[in-house]
Structures are given as C-alpha cells and as structure tokens.
C-alpha cells in the first residue's frame, strides 16, 4: 500500500496536467451533450477548438521544439482533409458514417499527409530559416492549386469534395480523443531521448551535429509527425464539415496556426493548447457578435490584439514592467502556490523570447552580381579561426 502511495507521489504531475485538464473538460462536455444541455453552436465551437489544438500542437513540434519555421501546415491539413474525406466517401456505402469509417479515414489521411511531409521535408529541410518558410508556403499553395484543378469526379475541383458529416452531437468527443492522442504522441516523443535530440537541434544545431545527433533524421521525424497530425486535423475537418474546399487551406490559415503557436509560447505545449482554444473562441465570438456593418471590425480588432499582445510580451523595453505585473506571479501569490523549491526547477520549455529560431539567415544586402563570394574572397567567407 505504502509503495503505491510512494509511486503516486513520485509521479511528476506536471507531465500529466495537460491530459488531466483536457480529459476533464472532455468528460464534462460529453456528459452535458449526452444530457442534451449543449446548444449546437457550442458543439461546433468545440469541434473547431479540437481541430485548432491538434494543428497548433503539431506545428509547435516543428516551430517551438525543432526551431524551424513552417508556413505550410495548412497544406498538410488540406491533404489530410481531401484524402481522408475521399476515403470516407468511398467507405460510406459499405461502412456507413460511423466510427469505423472515421478511424480508417484518419489512418489513411494521416499516413498520406505524413508521406507528403517526408517528400517535402527530405529536400526542404536542407534549407534553413526563412527559406524553409517560403518553401513550405509554396508547397501549401501548390497543394491547394492542385486540388482545385482536379476533376469533379475525383476531388470535386473548385466546388470542393462532398464529405459525409459525422454525427454533430458527438464528433467533438472524438476530437478530444484525438487531441489526447496527439498530445500523447508528441509529449511522449519530446519527453524522451529523441525529444531531447530535437530540442538540442533547436538550441544549437552545430553542437547537435558535433554531439553525434543525426540532425537530418530528427528534423525529418519532427516534420513528418507534425505533418501526420496536420493530416489528422484535416480528416477531422472533413468529418466536421459537409464540404472540403481547397480555398480554405491557403497560407493565411497556416499563419493563423502559427499565431496560435507563437502566442502560446514557443516550446510550451500547455500554452499552445490554451492559445489555440482562446484564439478559436475569440474568432468565433467575434464572428457571432459583430454582425452586419460591424463585421469589418473583426479583422481590425484581431490585428490590434495580436500586435499589442506580441509587443507586450516581447518588447525588451517592457521587460521590467512585465516582471512587475506578471499575472502568473500574481495568481501564484494569490493562491500561495509558490514553493521555495519551485524556482529551482526549470523545464526545457524556457521563456520563448530566449528560444532561438533559426529564421535569421544572415543574408547581407548585396549589389554585385557575384555568383560565388567564397571563391573570390575566401578568407572573408570563412574565417575558420
């Protein structure tokens, strides 16, 4: 008996916080929906939230932990949505619109998206920073364009693919289960030697090479897993909607996901989940509240909030102010949760202002048409010492 208690005490609760909170939220809402107490709009909102969370957490793996900037997440989602949607259409006759169909579609959609991630990642991950960003953005636009130009029989062309909608009442529960699966896979990966290798690449790629980390392999692993879950989110999207239209998955959508990751805190999964949920909620609420003439204010408000939050969170000049009026500190003081030991404990999820992202390329402003600088001026190009 004592041993069991010891064991429970030994568990790092922090590791399981995400699961517990999401599990509780899912359980509460499931209970409510079984009781019929939830309006449809809430169910839709929850569906959208789960999709956003899966997208944001999976993109967070690449941006927050691998430190590479990808603007093509919506492209993988698009692949997942179309492929998964198509599979579900083909299976709908034989298997109906139930869970079995959903599972098979999810599997196929995720696999194809992962394969796309592999095909794109293999060459593209040689590029760094902004170059990778633009290549992924380009990939996203190419995928969109290709699906738009398909024939009506295959993927519906510009009209989009008609997909069977899953039961509205319960889809969000599957969404939450998928969020938990996503979290389990990504957190388990990160909290292992492989996760350390990925974080090491983010922190210092050169040192990671020198420490024997197979950088290419781990970049690909992170990229492929991230793509696979974008595919999962896409399949979920195809089940949450009656239509999959490629136009939705443009680079603006990728940027929206990136915003969730960045506002949530780079390399902070809990923060990413919260920001994905809050941003989705905010977007939905603004759409609902701002009707008629006020609708144009939506983007304005969104933009202003975005700029203010980012400047407030990051401006070096506001550092003292931030530390003085830290809401988290305030909350902790209020609940007296600060333990003298807790300050010593630090996780890998460092403050994100410090987390390096390799999006700076050190390109210099150049005016000469010199094809290869290093041949002309070797000691400048490489100061080996």
């Amino acid at each position: 008996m004592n041993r069991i208690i010891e064991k429970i005490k030994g568990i790092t609760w922090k590791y399981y916080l995400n699961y517990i909170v999401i599990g509780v939220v899912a359980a509460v809402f499931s209970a409510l929906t079984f009781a019929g107490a939830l309006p449809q709009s809430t169910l839709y909102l929850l569906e959208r939230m789960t999709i956003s969370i899966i997208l944001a957490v999976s993109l967070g793996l690449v941006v927050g932990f691998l430190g590479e900037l990808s603007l093509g997440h919506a492209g993988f989602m698009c692949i997942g949505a179309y492929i998964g949607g198509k599979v579900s259409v083909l299976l709908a006759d034989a298997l109906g619109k139930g869970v079995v169909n959903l599972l098979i579609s999810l599997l196929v959609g995720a696999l194809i998206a992962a394969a796309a991630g592999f095909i794109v990642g293999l060459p593209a991950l040689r590029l760094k920073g902004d170059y990778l960003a633009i290549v992924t953005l380009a990939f996203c636009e190419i995928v969109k364009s290709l699906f738009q130009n398909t024939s009506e029989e295959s993927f519906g062309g510009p009209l989009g693919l008609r997909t069977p909608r899953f039961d509205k009442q319960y889809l969000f529960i599957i969404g939450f289960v998928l969020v938990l699966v996503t979290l389990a896979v990504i957190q388990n990966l990160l909290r292992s030697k492989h996760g350390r290798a990925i974080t090491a690449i983010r922190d210092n790629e050169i040192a990671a090479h020198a420490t024997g980390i197979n950088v290419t392999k781990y970049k690909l692993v992170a990229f492929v897993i991230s793509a696979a879950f974008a595919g999962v989110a896409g399949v979920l999207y195809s089940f949450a909607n009656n239509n999959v239209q490629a136009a939705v998955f443009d680079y603006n959508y990728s940027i929206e996901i990136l915003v969730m990751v960045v506002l949530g805190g780079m390399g902070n999964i809990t923060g990413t989940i919260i920001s994905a949920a809050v941003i989705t909620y905010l977007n939905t609420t603004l759409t609902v509240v701002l009707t008629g003439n006020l609708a144009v204010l939506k983007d304005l408000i969104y933009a202003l909030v975005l700029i203010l939050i980012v400047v407030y969170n990051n401006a070096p000049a506001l550092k003292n102010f931030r530390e003085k009026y830290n809401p988290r500190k305030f909350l902790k003081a209020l609940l007296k949760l600060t333990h003298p030991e807790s300050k010593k404990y630090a996780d890998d999820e460092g403050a994100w202002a410090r987390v390096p992202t390799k999006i700076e390329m050190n390109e210099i402003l150049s005016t000469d048409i010199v094809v290869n600088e290093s041949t002309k001026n070797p000691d400048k190009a490489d100061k080996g010492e």
Partner: protein
Amino acid sequence: MKKTFAKLLCLVLAVMLMVTCFVSCGETNYAENNTKIKIGVSGPLSGGAAVYGIAVKNAAQIAINEINAIEAAGGAGTLGMQFEFVAKDDEHKATNVSTTYSSLYESGMQISLGTVTTAPGLEFKELANDDNVFILTPSASGDDIPEYDNAFQMCFADSNQGSASAVYFNENYQGKQIGIFYKSDEDYSTGIRKTFLDALDASLKNGIKEASFQEGDNDFSSQVEALKTCDVIFMPIYYTPASQFMTKGKGIVKDDAIYYGCDGLDGIDAIDGFDITTVPQEVSYLSHFNSGATTGAAKTFIDKYNAAYNEETEPLNQFGAAAYDCVWAIYEALKVAKANGKEFDVTTSPADFSEILTEVFTSDNFTFHGVTGKAVNADGTSNISWSDDGFVNKEAVKYVVKSANSAQ
C-alpha cells in the same frame, strides 16, 4: 497536500466557469422569445468578396424597412408582424458557416436567405436541412444549393446560365470565333463554363479559344493576347476581373468583338471610376438584373438603394437586387399562406415556417412580382416563380450594357 488541493480547486473552478460560459438551458425552439420574425443571411462582409455580401445586407435591409413600414401602418392583408434582419460574416469561407449558421439559428432566426456565395452555401444548405430551416438564397448559384426541399434560389443556377448562354450563342453567333475567359479556381466560373461547353454546337466548339486566371491575378495581358482574335468572348466571371480584362483589351481585342457574360457581369457599368463607354467592344450579359436600369421597378429600387447607401464604397449589384426580391418574396409568400389559413406568429419555429413557405413556393399559382427578371408587368415588375426542385423560373434578359461603337 494543501497544494494539490488548491490546484484541484482551481481546476474545478475553471471547468465550472467554462461550463457556465457555454451551456444554455436546453431549449430547442430558439424563436420562442422573438418579438419579430427574424430573417438571417450568412455572407462575406469582410475580405475580398465583401462587396457582394454588403450589397445583399444593404438591399435586404431596405426591403425589411419597407415591409415593416407597411406592417406598422397595418391594413388589409398585412400580417400584423414586424421583421428583423441579421447578416453574419462568413468571409466567403465554408469553414465559418457552422459558426454563422448556428449563431443565427440559436439567436432565433426563423427564415434564412442562405448564403450570398456558393462555396459556403454548400455547407449552409446541409446544416439548414438538418434543422429544416427555409432557404431562399439571393445569389448562391451553385446547382447543388437547392438540393433539398427547403432550399430555393432567386438567381439562375450556374448550369442554367451556361446552357442558356450556349443556346443564345448557337442561335446568334454561328460562324464566329468564340473565346472563353474564366476563373479556374472558382466554382461559379467553372460551373457555367462546363454547361456552356456541353450545350454549345460542335461547329462553334471547334477551334474555341480559352484563357483563365486565378484568385488574386489581375494582370490579364497574356489572356488578352490569347483571346485577341476572337469575335465573341464569353465571360462567366464577376465584373471586377471582367472590367480589368476589358481595360487591358482596349486596342488589342478587335473593336467589333462582343463581350458576353452572365449575371456576374452585372454592375460592370457602375464601378466607380470605370467608364464603360471607353470600351470599344459591345458588352452584354444574360442576367436577371441590370443595376444600370433606367426603367421599371428595377429603376425605383436602384434609386432607393443609392439614396440609402454610398454608391462608391457599397455599390449595388445583382446580388443586392436579388436579396431585395428574396425578402419581398418571403413576405408575399407569408401573406399568401395567411390568406390560405395557415397560422403563424413571431415565435413560430423555423421548421414550421419552412413547411409553410415551401408549400407556397412550390405551389403552382404562386407568382412573385420582383425587380429581377424581365419586366413584363405594367408596374415594371417581373414574374417570378419556382419549380419544385427549388430553381427559379423567370425570364432572363440579355442586357446590352454598351453596344459596339465603331466611332471610337
């Protein structure tokens, strides 16, 4: 232990807070507390397609105001009820429809105008079908929009526009070089093009030239170049790119060529700063409305619109006219229903309204006199009726916005 307890407490509190945020009392008939009949629409009010959604919103509001004035005055045949109109922004994206639809529905919308554009409309009609909400869409012209019994269109369906245009071409443009200029990533454009090509005579289809563009493109120099030898250029696109093509085509496309479009071309002569008379070619389109109309009921409506809204920033187009007709058609149908002894009030559920309205719209003797379609009545209105499958029956008109001027 204390710490864990505090954390647990926090969690419970947070969950409770969230739940209270989301849960409404499990009421299914949201219209119960309405004081007016609520008509809703989901359309692009911001973003690239907003010009269409805003026209719908404005024109529908004009109709609502007029009806309410009549109702307020009372009198024989009135319903004795007021109307209310809500427009929510879907940004021309299907993704947003679940939000706009459910918020409309739960805020007590009883009758809907569906969506302004087709892409989100495909989502809207499914959701509306599940709840049995009546749809009379002003401008979502996709063939699949009126798939279910509760959905009707005020505009011509894409396939009808394509085949009707082809019929006209077969009759009038034999022996001419035909060209098509379409938008390859838009269902409206590709839909019309497809049925147009299907219905076109083989003799015309031979040697047909095509050029296309995509969302965001506006430099049409190569497309103009590709189509410059054509005698008739079919343009199943909206008026903005069409006007850009015509501007580019000045002096390159043959002066005696004909630009021929569908309802999307309406509004081309009303673009602020674009002088259509400087286009040497003939510009005409087959549509149900001409926002440059100078006679009939259309003219009266246009004047009303322009008096109420800024012509430059929120210009009228056929979307608006159709929306105006939609609201009036619903009102007329309700009057017919009342005359037929149906009972309803401001709190009647959407499903009941749907039943009532569907019955009227599919009945053989319901004809609505509107501003869209060919003016055949003495007061300059048109006759509009609906087929059982939701498509509109009214006479299309070939509007010649501008005839060819050999002088220029």
